[in-house]
């Protein structure tokens, strides 16, 4: 039995005249089961591997091993397919050209898919939008698939379509499939892959060496198979006249959901959150109430709910209680403070790296210095250790840093991809 729970962390006390309410809402899922087993509908898995010329034979062989490792984790009965990506997309499996672009996993199809993987060869360029477009089409060819997920691997930049074309093709895939994106080596662009992952509700990460791909693919597919809840929406109700300032996922990674809003009714917005396994995610919800009330008055600032289909499965209440006791109203909730810091940390790293790439060392030093300070304050060890490979941290407390001269491109990319991963609050 799948169970969801919600917990709200906030300082509900507001000083007279204040109208802004911030809260961290933790949503936890237990007993999710396996993909395609507990929800209505089937699960579909697609492996998309870059077979552009730049991969070369060693790269393609590693990609073959990774694709095979991923398919090994797919549970029998799950629909699956394999796409090879270059400047165009090619369906490698199933290859019979029937109306269905996917096959159901069985010992027979598993072995046939392995054979198909063996035929991959390096050739051509890179147009990731076409890969995603084909993946979405393939998914829609099997109506029973209600939970579709893909792993996308690339080694390079998206050179054979314009950013606008990529956007158009991504938009056609959005809502049909969730995509975890992985870049191998140091020739791909973190920002580009991050944009794809954000639009298609997946993760983005770096695989430094080709021989690490197989393990990463197996892990990703195992995770995907453990997401028994096909999709869920975060719903945020606010009172009449109130304004949602933002809705942000803040753990396990920072993701602004505000733009994903879809109206449920005049007072309620739904923010898609994709599929769920046994996990917990934190959301930062900020609301501006229409008016301050008299001291002593209480009102609800937001109902934050998780909905599976039309069913609300859990709810957290964000409250506002006006007080003239400044010892109550001045208190900053530790969870809100922590995640506000983590969000600023991600921005500081990304802005700092962008400034560094543009040759603006002053901005880069300031931003990465602020990042070092925030990472130290919030106890984000992973970011601190990755920052140390890009800057020399002289005083973590004040954010005094010096840019390092010879920085390994991979270290810089690792820092970039880590920037949005948040640490949890130290209890």
């Amino acid at each position, binding site marked *: 039995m799948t169970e969801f729970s919600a917990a709200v962390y906030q300082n509900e006390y507001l000083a007279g005249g204040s109208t802004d309410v911030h809260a961290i809402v933790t949503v936890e899922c237990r007993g999710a089961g396996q993909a395609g087993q507990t929800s209505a509908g089937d699960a579909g898995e697609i492996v998309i591997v870059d077979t552009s010329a730049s991969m070369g034979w060693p790269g393609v062989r590693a990609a073959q091993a990774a694709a095979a490792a991923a398919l090994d984790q797919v549970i029998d009965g799950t629909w699956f397919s394999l796409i090879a990506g270059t400047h165009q997309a090619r369906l490698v499996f199933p290859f019979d050209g029937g109306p269905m672009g996917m096959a159901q996993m069985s010992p027979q199809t598993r072995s046939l898919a392995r054979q198909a993987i063996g035929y991959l060869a390096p050739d051509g360029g890179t147009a990731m939008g076409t890969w995603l477009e084909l993946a979405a089409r393939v998914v829609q060819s099997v109506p029973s698939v209600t939970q579709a997920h893909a792993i996308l691997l690339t080694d390079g930049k998206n050179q054979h379509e314009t950013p606008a074309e990529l956007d158009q093709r991504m938009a056609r895939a959005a809502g049909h499939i969730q995509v975890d994106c992985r870049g191998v080596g140091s020739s791909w662009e973190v920002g580009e892959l991050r944009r794809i992952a954000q639009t298609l509700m997946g993760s983005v990460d770096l695989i430094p060496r080709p021989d690490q791909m197989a393990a990463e693919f197996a892990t990703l597919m195992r995770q995907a198979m453990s997401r028994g809840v096909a999709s869920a929406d975060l719903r945020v109700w606010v009172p009449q006249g109130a304004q949602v300032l933002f809705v942000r996922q803040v753990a396990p990674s920072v993701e602004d959901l505000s733009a994903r809003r879809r109206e449920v009714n005049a007072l309620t917005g739904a923010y898609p959150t994709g599929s769920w396994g046994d996990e917990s995610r934190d959301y930062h919800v900020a609301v501006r109430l229409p008016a301050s009330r008299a001291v002593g008055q209480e009102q609800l600032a937001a109902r934050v709910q998780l909905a599976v289909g039309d069913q*609300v499965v859990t709810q957290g209440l964000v409250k506002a209680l006006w007080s003239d006791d400044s010892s109550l109203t001045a208190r900053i909730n530790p969870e809100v403070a922590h995640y506000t810091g983590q969000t600023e940390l991600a921005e500081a790293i990304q802005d700092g790296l962008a400034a560094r790439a543009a040759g603006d060392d002053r901005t880069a030093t300031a931003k990465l210095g602020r990042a070092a300070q925030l990472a130290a304050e919030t106890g984000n060890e992973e970011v601190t250790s990755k920052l140390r490979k890009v800057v020399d941290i002289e005083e973590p407390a004040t954010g005094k840093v010096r840019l390092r001269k010879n920085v390994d491109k991979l270290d810089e990319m690792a820092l970039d991809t880590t920037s949005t991963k948040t640490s949890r609050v130290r209890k």
Partner: protein
Amino acid sequence: MDDAVSAVDGVVGRECGTCGTVAGPADRFCEHCGADLPTDGRATSSGVAVPADPAPPEGPDTATAPMLAPARRQPPRPPCRECGGAVDSDGYCTQCGAKAPSERDHFAVAPAPGVAAVSDRGLRHHRNEDAAAVLADGAGRAALVVCDGVSTSVSSDVASLAAARAAADVLGTGSVGLAEGSARIAALGVRVTQAAAAAAAAVAAATPDDDAESPPSCTFVAAAVQDPVVVVGVVGDSRAYWLPDVGEPLLLTIDDSVAGQQIAAGRPRAEAEAGPQAHAITRWLGVDSPDQTPRLTPLEVDGPGWLLLCSDGLWNYCSEPAALGEVAAGALGGAGGDPLTAASALVDWANDQGGHDNITVVLARLGGATGATGTTGMASVAGTASAEGTDQR
């Protein structure tokens, strides 16, 4: 009167009135939905302390629901008092988010035509320490009680409700039979004195053993009504007014307060009530009170009008009888003579003036009937309605 009083069980029970979740004996807020839990007089008198502090400010508010659980049974709730929107099972308005008051924080009752009581937390206090209990048979007999908890004590909200209930019980029991005139007044006077004693005993019973510092206490104003005769008794500064349809409004009580004593000695009301310590009360119900005997005022009305009992949450904004009479006439006129609507309007009016204190208003129509002379207790009279804390809005 036990049956009649059991109408309040839904109010003081340990089940969340909002979502139905069973609460622990010392819980002040619902574990499930965070709604205020009703304060339980019985639990307190048996020694379970009711914590004074509001909800912990930063604790997690946890809710768990199985995915396929059937919808929870939801008792009907009155609409939002601020915008008229539907109130959700979580206790807040679905439109404006206003917190729906708990039954203890706001209740309105009308046990019989012509009799109603409304009690409200007001705007500035965290809880309602006022209480009212009214019984009426619809044939000219009524028991009306208002108690105002003194807020320096932790459980004055419990004490005031227990006191009002106990007093109404006594006032509603028995009958003055065929007694007329001064005999009826004397009999009703005895009843009011007994009612005050029962109220004082209820406050003492609600006093925790270890609370010698600031034991719970409350004011007391009660009316034993057997139309056209009324006896009002008072301890403290809650009041009774007679508002005849024709003629001048009359204040029936003298406040047991610094100002009240000065006014009784001839000082102008406005001046006395503006003085330092003017509102400090000199008598109250409580184990630390030297004198809990009600001061009685009899009245035989010679025409139709309204008897109004109230806590200082109302009269602080319109102390002079003429001023209160004017406000009440406006409320009654706007309500078309319906006492429940009028009492609610008076509470709203006091909130519009600032709502600095809890507000309780009781209205009873007098002088319209010939006066019932039944020989049985009110509870057994056919058509008797009694309610307390049951929201009928």
